[in-house]
């Protein structure tokens, strides 16, 4: 039995009377809709938060008017505006690929949510290859970005898409290797069991394992994940000041909104992976805090990492393309290999 299915079964006992396929389909679709709602809410909140953080770090106020208190309704107004904007497809564009690109980017992001463990019971699909699955699904985004950039038939878009492709595929290697360091110890790829293996207090979390080796792995993962989701200092694919938006220059209306949603969903996903693998997932740091439910810890830890991503945006300047490649292939990759070898040595000796 899937933990999620049991979770819904406890809430609504009558689903156990339904035929199995119907019950699983209904539970699955309801979960997707719930998570879609979460993604949309998170994106709205994160957009507001990012604008406020950016503003305050630059000694401005940011949105203050819409909705009264500190402009909290600004992202809602923006979303409605995007919904009623005219949808323009450039005349020379490859129409099929142009329409397909946002679907792929957003679906890949949403599919990543399938294996995130919110608590002991609430995990949509507890795959035994969970971590590998989430890595492979999130790399689908590259195809979407490349498709969108190429299909637009715009020079800015093409440059942005090419940069996105070379950046995202390069940084996949350090991401995968840094996570591998933890799997070697835990001996499982299931997101749920990875967290259960960290039970105890804060010192049992993987980030403090084999000190300081996994801490360095965590750092490598965090840096590389910034590049995976195109955040500053690795935001070359969309660098506003040089590429006027990069791969999504030609997109407007809801198609643009879905690129944006997918981007924010990915920010949350990489933070959630870091939380699951390194920071103890839904577990409380101390036994005494166990009364606070798991999902609050999980979202809280992930949101902290999202905050750090926004903070870094106003702290670090954008890298050059060659510096980007240097960081990936000459710094992060050799270091993550070294960590894997050191942890392996530590364990066999």
């Amino acid at each position, binding site marked *: 039995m*899937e933990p*999620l299915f049991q979770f819904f079964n406890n809430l609504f006992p009558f689903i156990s009377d339904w035929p199995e396929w119907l019950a*699983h389909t209904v539970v*699955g*679709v309801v*979960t*997707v*809709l719930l998570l*879609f709602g979460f993604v949309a809410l998170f994106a709205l909140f994160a957009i507001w938060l990012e604008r406020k953080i950016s503003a305050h770090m630059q000694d401005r106020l940011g949105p203050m008017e819409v909705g009264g208190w500190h402009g909290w309704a600004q992202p809602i107004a923006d979303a409605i505006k995007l*919904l*009623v904007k*005219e*949808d*323009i*497809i450039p*005349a*020379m564009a490859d129409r099929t690929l142009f*329409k397909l690109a*946002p*679907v792929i980017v957003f*679906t890949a992001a949403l*599919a990543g*949510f*399938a294996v995130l463990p919110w608590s002991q019971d609430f995990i949509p*699909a*507890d*795959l035994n290859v969970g971590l*590998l699955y989430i890595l492979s699904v999130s790399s689908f985004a590259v195809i979407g970005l490349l498709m969108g950039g*190429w299909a637009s*038939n*715009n020079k*800015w*878009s093409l440059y942005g898409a090419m940069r996105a492709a070379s950046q995202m*595929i390069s940084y996949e*290697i350090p991401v*995968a*290797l840094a996570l591998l360091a933890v*799997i*070697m110890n835990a*001996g499982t*790829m299931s997101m749920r069991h990875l967290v259960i293996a960290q039970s105890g207090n804060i010192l049992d979390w993987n980030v403090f394992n084999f000190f300081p080796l996994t801490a360095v792995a965590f750092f490598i993962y965090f840096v590389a994940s910034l590049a995976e989701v195109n955040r500053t200092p690795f935001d070359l694919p969309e660098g506003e000041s040089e590429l*006027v938006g990069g791969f999504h220059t*030609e997109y407007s*209306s*809801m198609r643009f*909104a879905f690129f944006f949603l997918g981007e924010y969903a990915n920010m949350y996903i990489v933070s959630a992976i870091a939380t699951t693998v390194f920071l103890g997932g839904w577990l409380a740091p101390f036994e005494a805090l166990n009364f606070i439910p798991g999902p609050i810890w999980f979202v809280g830890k992930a949101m902290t990492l999202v905050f750090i991503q926004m903070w870094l945006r106003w702290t670090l300047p954008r890298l050059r393309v*060659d510096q980007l*490649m*240097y960081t990936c*292939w*000459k710094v992060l*990759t*050799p270091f993550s*290999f070294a960590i*894997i*070898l050191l942890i*392996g*040595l530590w*364990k*066999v000796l």
Partner: protein
Amino acid sequence: MIGFYTVLLFILTGAFLVSFTVALSRFLAPTKDYPEKHIPYECGELPQGEAWIQFNNRFYIVALIFLIFDVEVIFMYPWAVVFNDMGLLAFIEMFIFIFILLVGLAYVWVKGDLDWIKPKPRLEHLAKAKGE
């Protein structure tokens, strides 16, 4: 296996939600169409030629290296899962495997394919053969 069915539901429902919302915005949004709206954006100028041109794509070698390393990572994940049970034997075997790939990385590094400006190949023997 039921987990993979849930994943399938995620993908199908996700694709449906995107298409549905885009279609919804088609109904809600006004359409005031004129040809100028469909010109690719090039900072207000009329676009010069197509964007589907050939250009010097740096780091294309990186795509090849990525392919090799990605396959390697796929091999290493199952290895990492059973590492606790296999112990020293698994460690030595994987060490040899990683070592061979790292030699490849070192070769690319020295050859300069990871740099923006690739060093010119040294062709002293060619110059000698020409008698210069």
